[in-house]
């Protein structure tokens, strides 16, 4: 390992420590609210991350939004204007769980299946029609499938719009990856 590499590693560790001490999480009533708040904050250009909550506030199907603490008031104002307010803001004191960011593709010839976490979305490569959605265990999965299967990627509602749970959020990631791959 070169001297330069050692230096880089030390620098990255230090910066991640700084990051923890100046960040907080916004806790919402449910995952749908998190998804709405994420959209609002993304559109306004805030640098935020959707993460897993610390163990003491987990209930089973949760997401939180990690924010820079210094911007707390501005961010809360933005959310208030959009009508989506968090239940509370908690300073981050331990590492948060990272959502899955791995995608797996399976090529069936005429079809391609994209998997994100436990959700799989399959499209017809010629027509761009969503032909199947599988995996997952939260109750919005059958609903999302009902609303999306049989429609093209451009016509179908995105899981972000109509999903409510972590499985819905995972399907959103698979959907975005599919759109990205199909537009290449």
């Amino acid at each position, binding site marked *: 390992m070169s001297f330069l590499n050692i230096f880089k590693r030390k620098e990255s560790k230090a910066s991640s420590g700084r990051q923890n001490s100046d960040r907080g999480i916004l806790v919402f009533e449910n995952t749908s609210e998190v998804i709405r708040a994420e959209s609002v904050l993304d559109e306004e250009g805030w640098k935020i991350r959707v993460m897993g909550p610390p163990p003491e506030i987990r209930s089973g199907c949760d997401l939180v939004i990690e924010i820079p603490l210094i911007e707390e008031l501005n961010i809360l104002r933005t959310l208030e204007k959009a009508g989506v307010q968090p239940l509370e803001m908690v300073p981050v004191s331990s590492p948060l769980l990272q959502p899955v960011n791995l995608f797996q593709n399976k090529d069936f010839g005429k079809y391609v299946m994209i998997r994100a976490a436990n959700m799989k979305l399959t499209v017809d490569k010629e027509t761009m029609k969503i032909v199947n959605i599988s995996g997952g265990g939260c*109750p919005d999965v059958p609903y999302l499938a009902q609303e999306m299967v049989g429609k093209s990627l451009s016509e179908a509602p995105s899981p972000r719009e109509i999903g*409510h749970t972590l499985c819905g959020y995972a399907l959103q990631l698979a959907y975005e990856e599919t759109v990205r791959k199909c537009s290449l």
Partner: protein
Amino acid sequence: MFAIVGTVPDQDFPLAVGEVLLVNGVIRIEGKSVPVNRGTPALLAAAIKTCEVLDQPAPFGYVVGDIGRGDGSRRLYEYLTRNLGKCDPQSKSGSGLNAITFHYLQPDVDWHNRVLFAVEEMAKRPVLIADAGFMYAAKMSGQSSEYDLFTPDAGELAFLADEEAPHPFYTRGFILHEENRVPKLISRAYTNGNAARYLLVKGKKDFVANCNGIQATIDSPLEEAMEAIGGAGDTLTGIIAALIEAGIGVKEAAIVAARVNRLAGHYAKPTPATQVMEIIQHIPKALEEILNENGGIREKTFA
């Protein structure tokens, strides 16, 4: 009698409790109908088809509409906590149940624990099967060992194996990369107390395992397209539930069901665009074939 507990993707579907029928490809319970696309309706339909072959009563359903907001699931959880421990099956309670399969429900640890308390109050403890959202809650509660069977797919097995993940969405990358090493993940899930008495891991190859390791693998016929078909795993769980009701043990039910589901899939000649009802229609033929093969399984199983 065996019960299936889950949700349907219709916000207005009321809490319905009673015998479930499959009429012209539609699930009916207490006069309400829901199509069979995937999820709990697919599980119910597969269980009903299996019951028809076995000449036994259809499952008892506890079903409610929920599109992911969790409101329906909470109503159902509350109903279960109030009624599962009661004595008379005719009063829509659970104490006459031999087995309960918990399926698509909003994962909620607190409600999960309350339901498990209600089960413990039942006069006779039923065989407990958990899949989908309720399996996620069971794992997160730390009470996986209270269950007789979990039916995860490979991704969900990685979640069970990851002692820190509260939902498959947070399964750590280094564990997800182990997907092709199912035996190692099974072992890790048992080591951390995050597996039921038996696991049936659904995938290209199905694994039946317990704390002593892999008990059986089922890998034929292989239809690659099955992985893409929504509900193809739900049907497997439905077949197992009905086989257990017939008196077959959990391990053998899992093995027979895996074979039946694969064969039904094979008969459907599936593509990734196939819908699950096309597979369900072939369950009776596949089940008959496997029960009668070598002139033996049916006799041995139900002797």
